């Protein structure tokens, strides 16, 4: 009984598992059919190699239909996602190129149709639609404050202005500023303190006047 069971044991065969690198054609390019067949079996390396190899090809097809690079990239991603979702529908016995091309054309046509529909019923708003009738509301507040601050800085005494420029605008440390200006750290601290006080006062007066 035992002997008969052993006699039916099949002979051991050494099987070399194919790798993603084996899916190279003689000209050095990737064999997409083989890579897709392995991807269908769950080989992640083969799948990554396939998708990365497909991107330039799909981009060249999408580049003929879309002008903006962002649209081209969106189309490429759309095609990649469709390939991912219908990868079980690919038959490895058939060529991969026509299968991919048909999917790419279908996705690109869908995007072009969607764009046309959107253009037909949507209108881009220009910035003037968003402003108010009050004149100060349309002024750029950031530029206004920057100009006032620059003006106030010009009116500071030279030693205070130098301290502010070195410590605040150029972001030097107290030690670096002292070395550069030849003044003591304490003198710089006092000058900065007085400069900020003076600036605050000048800007306050300006806003009161306006």
């Amino acid at each position, binding site marked *: 009984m035992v002997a008969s069971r052993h006699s039916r044991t099949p002979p051991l065969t050494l099987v070399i598992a194919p790798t993603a690198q084996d899916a190279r054609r003689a000209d050095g390019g990737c064999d997409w059919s083989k890579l897709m067949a392995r991807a*269908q079996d*769950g080989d*992640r390396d083969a799948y990554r190699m396939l998708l990365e190899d497909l*991107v330039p090809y799909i981009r060249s097809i999408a580049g003929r239909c879309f002008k903006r690079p962002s649209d081209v990239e969106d189309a490429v991603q759309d095609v990649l996602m469709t390939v991912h*979702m219908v990868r079980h*529908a690919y038959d490895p016995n058939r060529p991969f190129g026509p*299968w991919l091309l*048909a999917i790419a054309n279908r996705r690109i046509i869908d995007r072009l149709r969607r764009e046309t529909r959107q253009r037909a019923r949507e209108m881009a708003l220009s910035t003037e639609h968003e402003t108010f009738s009050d004149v100060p509301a349309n002024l750029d507040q950031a530029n206004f404050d920057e100009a006032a601050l620059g003006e106030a800085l010009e009116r500071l005494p030279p030693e205070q202005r130098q301290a502010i420029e070195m410590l605040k605008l150029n972001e030097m440390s107290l030690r670096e500023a002292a070395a550069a200006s030849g003044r003591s750290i304490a003198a710089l601290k006092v000058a900065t303190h007085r400069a900020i006080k003076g600036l605050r006062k000048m800007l306050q007066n300006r806003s009161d006047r306006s």
Partner: protein
Amino acid sequence: MTKTPDLIDALVEGTTPVRRLRPPLVRAALWLLLTAVVLVLIVTGHGLRPDIAERLRQPVFVLSMIAAITTGILAAVASFQISLPDRSRWWILLPAPALAVWLSTIGYGCLSDWVSVAPNENRIGETVRCFATLLLTSVPLSIAMLVMLRYAALLRPTESSAMSGLAIAAITAFSLSLVHDLDASLTILVWNLGVAILIAGLACLFGRRMFAWTASRLTSTPAKSSNRP
């Protein structure tokens, strides 16, 4: 916006072994097997029309029935073929000859022998039973087709749904003619052509959306699993 290398990372990360689709002819055969089961159940439950023996001696009726079932079979094969992206669009013409024969036999029957009202026809009762047969045939076949062709939502939804609609319509008309004694010419027209136009029209109008809905229910999209904004 996700960058393409990031999307590839997400897709590769989410990949699992997939079961390849069987060849389209095998899948069409499976669907036709289900059709045969549905037809056998309907005939068993309702019984054949009483005058079936007499009808089978009429060449026009026999030709019409053969043409209807052939249209259904060929349209089913065409819809499974056309749902795959790399198959030719010309598969859409496969059921055309059988469809032409089917429509011409109905037209010929009406022109040569117009019977406005059948002598023993109980209109309301027969209409209700016809409607029940219509639903019992077309609903399970439509659901099976939607599930089997859900991936077509991304590829060729319009062509696939038109061919599926034609297949279901022809088989439903065949089933109606098999179990109901439709004698009046107008009734034959309504329950054959009317049903065919209704089902094929509904499939063309809503097939695309139905495929998309079924696909979203039955497949997990990478857009859901990845972090794509």
